[in-house]
């Protein structure tokens, strides 16, 4: 659009203003405010003593913090590869011509529209011993002998499995749609040519489909890692971080430090540790995407 320089500046400002006000006040400003908070003993009521770098040296030596970061990392490691495999599998299922195609597309996505509270409570009851859905189905088909129960939520390893399954069920929908739309963009001629050359289904999947999905899969992988690092609510509801804090992720520790132990300053310091980790991951993603762009050109 052509217009005079000063007019363009003035109009752009007016158009940008509503967004910039909110963005500045509630995204940018808190980032700086948070830095101030890390230098103080800062409670829910008010700012107190100046601490200097104390919170920072404390956070680096705090075993609870590193354990919680470790738990977030476990969650990342458990959910990321499984998410990719599940997402691609679901996309393949929903891409095949079938009378159930529409049903598949809807049912794989529907859990994603639920609130985290609903998904988590549903999971909590599904994995309940005695009358929970999983155990009673296992009883019904005699995979689990009568009189025995699996205590999904009170044993650390099982709790991680339950949390992972709930998370996959609840969040795979978004990735599934991204994979499905990428599959649909693969030109049919390529498959036809491969078929003429005598390629089987399996070969076509490994040689055509998967390579075509590589770019979106890379993006999903990074977004998934970043999102998984920020896990909180489903674990908080399903296990409460237990048994004995053995599944407590970093965000839960931040929440508890700030709002239960009444130490917002220290909680903010922990947030920045997480922030730095996420920033490094985001930079890595940006770098990977750009490298891919460089290869293409």
């Amino acid at each position, binding site marked *: 659009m052509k217009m005079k320089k000063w007019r363009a500046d003035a109009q752009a400002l007016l158009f940008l203003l509503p967004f910039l006000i*909110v963005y500045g006040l509630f995204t940018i400003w808190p980032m700086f405010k948070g830095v101030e908070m890390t230098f103080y003993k800062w409670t829910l009521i008010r700012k107190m003593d100046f601490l200097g770098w104390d919170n920072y040296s404390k956070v680096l030596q705090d075993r609870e913090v590193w354990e919680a970061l470790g738990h977030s990392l476990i969650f990342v490691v458990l959910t990321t590869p499984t998410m990719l495999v599940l997402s691609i599998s679901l996309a393949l299922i929903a891409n095949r011509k079938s009378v159930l195609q529409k049903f598949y597309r809807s049912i794989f996505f529907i859990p994603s529209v639920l609130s985290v509270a609903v998904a988590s409570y549903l999971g909590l009851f599904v994995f309940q011993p005695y009358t929970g859905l999983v155990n009673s189905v296992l009883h019904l088909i005699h995979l689990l002998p009568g009189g025995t129960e699996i205590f999904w939520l009170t044993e650390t390893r099982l709790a991680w499995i339950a949390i992972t399954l709930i998370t996959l069920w609840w969040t795979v929908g978004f990735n599934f749609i991204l994979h499905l739309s990428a599959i649909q963009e693969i030109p049919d001629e390529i498959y036809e040519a491969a078929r003429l050359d005598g390629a089987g289904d399996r070969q076509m999947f490994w040689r055509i489909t998967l390579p075509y999905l590589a770019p979106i899969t890379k993006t999903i992988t990074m977004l998934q890692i970043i999102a998984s690092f920020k896990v909180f609510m489903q674990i908080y509801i399903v296990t409460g971080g237990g048994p004995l804090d053995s599944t407590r992720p970093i965000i839960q520790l931040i929440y508890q430090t700030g709002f239960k132990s009444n130490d917002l300053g220290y909680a903010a310091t922990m947030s920045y540790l997480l*922030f730095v980790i996420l920033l490094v991951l985001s930079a890595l993603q940006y770098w990977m995407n750009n490298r891919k762009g460089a290869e293409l050109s």
Partner: protein
Amino acid sequence: MKWVYRLVSLFIAVLFAGPLVWMLFVSVKEEGMKIITVMDWFTPPYSLAVYQEILSGTKLTNWIGNSLLVAVFVTVLTVAAAALAGFALSKIPFRYRTLMFFVVLAGLLIPGEATIIPLYQVAKDMNLLNSYQGLIIPALASPVAVIVLKSFFDGIPNDLLESVQIDGGGSWRIFMRIMLPLCRPALASMAILTFIGSWNNFLWPFLSITDDNLFTLPMGIPTLISQYSEDYVKPMVVNAIASIPIIVLFVIFERQIVKGISMSGIKG
């Protein structure tokens, strides 16, 4: 081979539907039913008594109202602000345009969860805790929406805009008369995704609201369910009441939702 594939597909779909179907069946059971095998959950008698009890005896309908109010305001204002900003970034040749674009892009790198503690303090300083304004205003800046809408506006040819300019139309008129109507599908997709995001938002209301008259639905669910004892019926009714509206919304707007996700390439 083919039927094995079909059977596996169907089995996976059943696993996905299972918990939701179970939720609906449990929610229409009578309370205190004896459950011996899993089939007991699905067989009659059915009753809607607990629905009535929960809807009339708790604040759940209040909370649904709050969620709806907040989600409508957040959706309309977020999309409006993002459309205005996206238009400026796309079509107005102002100084520092590239810089401004990067400032917005940087917002994608700032994880809300990592700045939630200072956000709490900022909101407190502004007297926004425990208020509808506090639920709505901090949620209005969506860099993702700005960037998606900007890229949509980029696709509208400048010739079209210049012909309106020659007829004496200003930026505002171009925005209202050309950009918005042409980008209606993108706006609709963004609006629906924003609505769902707001309807399901948990962390911020969880931290900023303590007055249970101002609870939104996702916060009300744990509050209610933690009061109920072992029985499953009440929790499942609460879950069902919370999910049915959003699932219906999904069924109506499935196409726009799918399009919105493919456009942004960003998870909710």
